[in-house]
């Protein structure tokens, strides 16, 4: 098991390197630091000196991969690739364009992100599984037909509609919850109700259908027939036999996104004014602050790989046949 974990972590290095190369190619080779400076400085007619000054200020005044002017090992380290891209491996995110430390921003902003994403995720999972189980339990009935039609309709509605509709109806018309904003500490729950609700509802169509299909796949298996032949009730078959067996495909989709909950949701956070990492990223995209975007891409990839390893570990918990070597 330890050997397996070490191998998986070593396997992560080339993937993260690949991610780094992709982002580096996007942000430094396609879009040169000169372009970046010109966009940041704004005006159409910027002088060459102004660009050079901006590059020095933000540490972009170095060659891409190989520094011919430096001495010895510094030929490789005094380059943009090492300083801006490889440094991410040491979790050194550097500074945003406004001069603030990205790492500190991430530390403070991940809590609001988690406060929104965690309840959304777990309440959502419970609701989706319950919906799917109910539809499977009452299969070949009017209830199932109505439920399936509802799910198709719900999944055909744009996610933006849920956000805007929720804010308008619950926030503006009924005054149940503040439309947007955030408060630190325990006061936050008031602001969390609406984003969590919207997050859960907007996923119900797609996820409900997905889990229903998973359960229906299991229901035609031989062990289900055996369980019924033993005289077990349909409820016991469903909860004691089908649910545990469907756990593997469920975990495949669920565990991998767990670590990424830190990063929050781009759309939900910026619509509801949650000062988390999602809105941080959106602001960075809109302000074209590449340093932040690069850091978030790297962090996202890292957490994805952690998620993949966790998925494998979770298999050993639910399926005794799985052994990691």
């Amino acid at each position, binding site marked *: 098991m330890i050997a397996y974990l070490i191998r998986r972590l070593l396997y992560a290095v080339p*993937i993260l390197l690949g991610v780094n190369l*992709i982002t580096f190619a996007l942000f430094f080779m396609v879009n040169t630091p000169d*372009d970046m400076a010109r966009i940041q400085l704004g005006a159409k007619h910027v002088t060459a000196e102004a660009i050079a000054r901006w590059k020095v200020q933000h540490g972009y005044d170095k060659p891409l991969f190989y520094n011919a002017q430096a001495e010895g090992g510094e030929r490789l380290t005094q380059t943009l690739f090492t300083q801006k891209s490889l440094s991410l491996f040491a979790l050194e995110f550097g500074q945003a364009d406004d001069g603030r430390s990205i790492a500190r921003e991430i530390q403070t902003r991940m809590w609001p992100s988690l406060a929104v994403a965690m309840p959304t995720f777990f309440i959502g999972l419970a609701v989706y599984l319950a919906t799917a189980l109910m539809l499977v339990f009452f299969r070949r009935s009017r209830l199932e037909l109505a439920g399936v039609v509802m799910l198709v309709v719900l999944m*055909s509605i744009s*996610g933006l509609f849920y956000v805007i509709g929720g804010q308008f109806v619950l926030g503006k018309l009924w005054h149940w919850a503040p439309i947007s904003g955030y408060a630190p500490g325990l006061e936050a729950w008031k602001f969390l109700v609406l984003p969590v609700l919207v997050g859960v509802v907007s996923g119900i169509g797609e996820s409900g259908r997905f889990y229903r299909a998973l359960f229906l796949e299991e229901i035609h298996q031989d062990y289900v027939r055996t369980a019924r032949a033993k005289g077990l009730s349909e409820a016991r078959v469903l909860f004691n036999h089908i649910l545990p067996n469907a756990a593997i495909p469920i975990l495949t989709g669920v565990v991998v996104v767990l670590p990424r909950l830190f990063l929050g949701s781009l759309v939900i956070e*910026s619509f509801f004014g949650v000062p988390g990492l999602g809105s941080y990223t959106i602001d960075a995209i809109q302000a074209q602050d590449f340093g932040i975007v690069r850091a978030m891409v790297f962090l996202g990839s890292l957490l994805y790989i952690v998620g993949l390893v966790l998925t494998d570990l979770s298999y050993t918990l639910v399926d005794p046949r799985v052994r990691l070597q």
Partner: protein
Amino acid sequence: MSVQPVLLASDVLLAILLMALVAYLVHVRQQPPLQATWRRVTRTALGRVAGTVLALYLTVGVLDSLHYRPALPAQGGQAVQYSNEVLSVLDAVLTPLRTGVEKTYSAPMATHLYAKETVTLASGEVVRVAPPLKHWHLLGTDKVGQDVLYLSLKSIRTGLLIGTLTTLIMLPFAVTLGLAAGYFGGRVDDAIQYLYTTLNSIPGVLLIAAAVLVVQVQIEMHPDWFDSAAARADVRLLALCAILGMTSWTGLARLLRAEALKLRELEFVHAARAFGVGHAGIVRRHILPNVGHLIVISVVLDFSGLVLAEAVLSYVGAGVDPATASWGNMINGARLELAREPIVWWQLAAAFGFMFVLVLAANLFADAVKDAFDPRTAR
């Protein structure tokens, strides 16, 4: 009236796509089993209705893709000059809607403008009234007085292009890489798996947003590349499709890889190899036809997701050009107007409504296709 046809890059691609569709239909006609499968799609009432709705949207989209520049009114003796504005056949059909512009918002089917104005009456009395509208608008008008129905119809092309061109760009990657990984195995498999794990590990929206950002900067830096605003918006739309395509091939590739892994061990493939058929021949004649249903199912399933993604990406600021008519832009422009009193709801309702009908039809059609093509479905 003389016109000068304009061929935007996306028009060409859409034409290629339509030709591919026609070629596929001809292919279906020649293959009775395939024809029978498609018959099963159209036999269900839902499949038929959904197909009809999709065909209607497609017609509007195609009409909107035949672009031209109208001639300017002739000025004695001069050669014919063409307008800078690029129009489409749809614009010509909808001329009354396009040109019937009001001052600002007006409610659906209203007779008067939304905002009140100070008017001096003939008697010298000054009153605040909502002025009467010049035209009748089924779905009202937006902030700058454009007809909302016209904008919604214009957005159809954008939605369709994103849903279809992305697939067109994604398919070659997904099919060749997925089949190659599964069929050849070994080093090839390792390399391709590495490629898609790396791409998958980058958060999707972020990668798309970052790439769109880069394209946007490039477009801003080189205004001289484009001869009209329409061409610039068009390139941005295509770039968005390309980026979405490059990031979304991994799912199908994985599916095809797993299928090819299974197929290459089957007897008919072994037999073909024993007869000395080359790798290309085996993949084309024995593997590809056996994964056809997976490709068809995933193409129709992806479509609706892509249409919905456009709206979200436009909101994030990584969508289509703000000047391009799209549901995402309509929603983005109108979402703050819900705070007005009385509320301005029609622009949002129109965008969500048009999008909902298209996506619902696509989802229902996809279900019908899946039921017909999936060999596990009981007949």
